[in-house]
């Protein structure tokens, strides 16, 4: 187990180094860039020159790379062009927002997806099954930003069931402890803040959950059907075990193995979906940050760090999935 983890960590480091180098040189070769982004329409040529020197762009590229690498290794990704803050701070603030959203979405997706997939499998070929399949197919075929727009239009405009955007009501002045607003409200006993944050979370989480939900339903259904065909289920039946016992002990546990893998793969999709969802709901997370640091501003320092972060998250999550797989599936445990 330790060997697996350490091998993965080395792999992570190599991947990151390759990515960093690639991204660095690529960005330097692009037109525009930080100098353009830092200067508005009003800059004089002199100012432009001054800025080029101030940022060290007049130095040879390998000197720049060395400096950059040295910074990155010490955890310094420079400052955001757009906001002037250290990139680590910008990302540190956006990260919990996205995690909060993603966790909520995953809870919805699993909480609904596994039971629905299971029910569909048990009622295979009947109305419930067919309805579920159609809904999931539409779920993965609908552009989710459009779904978000529709939900927002229906539920926040004519009738104000949910707030249209943001993570918490303006002026509520909640205390920020962990950056997870729902949790913070509980920790500081500002229950109104927690409830308010939860209320803001509903629509974005539902929107973001759409695709993972559809996929989890499908995988669960297929997986349950597979398991129901397995010989050991027949054995369990031959033992005369009651249906609930068989379902819980024998079917579900085995059926969830592929679901766990899919959940791991879906974290990547969640990050991608968050870009769209967060834009729709003005949710101040990583997704918004990505859009903001590309569209218009070309905030390359942030973008650079985000690319690395996405890779780290993806690889770490997959490692965690593999490890959790080892916990659930004894066949994987011994290696």
């Amino acid at each position, binding site marked *: 187990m330790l060997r697996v983890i350490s091998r993965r960590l080395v792999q992570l480091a190599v991947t990151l180094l390759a990515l960093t180098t690639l991204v660095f040189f690529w960005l330097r070769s692009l037109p525009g860039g930080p100098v353009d982004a830092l200067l508005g329409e009003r800059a004089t040529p002199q100012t432009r020159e001054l800025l080029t020197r101030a940022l060290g762009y007049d130095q040879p590229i390998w000197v720049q790379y060395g400096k950059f690498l040295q910074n990155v290794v010490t955890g310094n990704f420079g400052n955001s062009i757009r906001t002037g803050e250290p990139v680590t701070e910008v990302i540190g603030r956006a990260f919990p927002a996205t995690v909060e959203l993603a966790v909520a979405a995953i809870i919805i997706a699993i909480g609904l997806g596994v039971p629905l997939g299971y029910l569909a499998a048990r009622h295979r070929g009947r109305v419930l099954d067919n309805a579920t399949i159609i809904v999931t197919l539409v779920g993965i075929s609908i552009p989710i930003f459009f779904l978000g727009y529709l939900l927002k239009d229906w539920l926040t405009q004519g009738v104000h069931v949910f707030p249209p955007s943001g993570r918490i009501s303006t002026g509520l002045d909640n205390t920020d402890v962990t950056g997870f607003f729902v949790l913070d409200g509980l920790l500081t006993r500002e229950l109104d803040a927690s409830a308010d944050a939860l209320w803001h979370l509903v629509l974005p989480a539902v929107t973001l959950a759409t695709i993972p939900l559809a996929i989890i339903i499908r995988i669960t259904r297929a997986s349950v059907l597979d398991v129901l065909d397995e010989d*050991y289920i027949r*054995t369990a*039946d031959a033992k*005369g*075990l*009651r*249906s609930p*016992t068989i379902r819980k002990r024998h079917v579900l546990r085995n059926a969830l193995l592929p679901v766990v893998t899919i959940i791991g793969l879906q974290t990547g999709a969640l990050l991608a979906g968050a870009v769209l969802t967060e834009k729709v709901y003005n949710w101040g997370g990583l997704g918004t940050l990505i859009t903001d640091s590309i569209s218009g501003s070309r905030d390359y320092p942030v973008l650079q760090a985000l690319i690395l972060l996405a890779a780290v998250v993806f690889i770490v999550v997959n490692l965690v999935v593999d490890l959790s797989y080892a916990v659930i599936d004894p*066949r994987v445990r011994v290696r």
Partner: protein
Amino acid sequence: MPLLDVRDLSVVFQRKGTRPVRAVDGVSFTVEPGQTVGLVGESGCGKSVTSLAIMGLLPRRGNKVTGEVRFDETDLLKLRPQDLRDWRGRDIGMIFQDPLSSLNPVIPLGLQVAEVLERHQGRTRKAALKQARDLLDAVGIPDPDRRLDEFPHQLSGGMRQRALIAIALACKPRLLIADEPTTALDVTIQAQILTLLKELVDDSGTALVMITHDLGVVAGLCDTVNVLYAGKVVERAYRHQLFAEPRHPYTHGLLQSVPRLDVDRGERLHQIRGSVSDNIPWSEGCAFAPRCDRVIDDCIGETVPLEPTFRGGALRCTNPVPQEVPA
């Protein structure tokens, strides 16, 4: 009074958009308490389906089961599914062909044995596990304490099958159905498992239905043998008679194709022509006719009935293998 009385059991598989397939076609046989009965035939002859139908383990949809399965005077086919669950595991145990896939890969062995005790004997988990340990010991699994926490993939094939036997016999059922219990095992292990089965069955007085394609298994174990072909019983006889004087050409062929030590090595082994796919439907005559060496015109045209023989057996053939020494 027989323990198990199967009467005119038929199973028809029907899936949407396909033609119905009659897998078991009016099979009848009985099992007396403590007796060992064999169901023999090639794969696809319906012997496994028969056993699953008796246990009520066929998939709920896509098939139709008719006839009667009287166990201790109760028609199991008429029981509600949840009531049948009370019988299974307690009164009838079953062992399956592939011990690896028949054990749940993610549940420790101990629990897989213990749960049947919890279910039928109302044991607590602790007591059940203790008893499970003794059961594992009884079926000859070494170091049973350690095995309780192990998973099926950590066991050898023979041990897995022993574990399955332990599960099937945990509640001391009156009937045990063993569906090809040794097919997936090494030859050396096969013998051990058969010996174990025989011992356990003899000790507890459990009746055994042994389903196999292997006549060697039948020879060592069974009191009565039913030979199935294409879903019908074609011959029934006591073990000795069957081996001494097979009447049905199919049975005859089967026996001939078993390699024997007392035959010259140069002699070619007998084989039955063709395969099951050459069958004709029973309603059109004898299903075996296209492959039969003794086929005559009468074999085709109408269903051949199963007729009792004067030795207490039964035969379904228009042109049986002649008896060498008339009794």
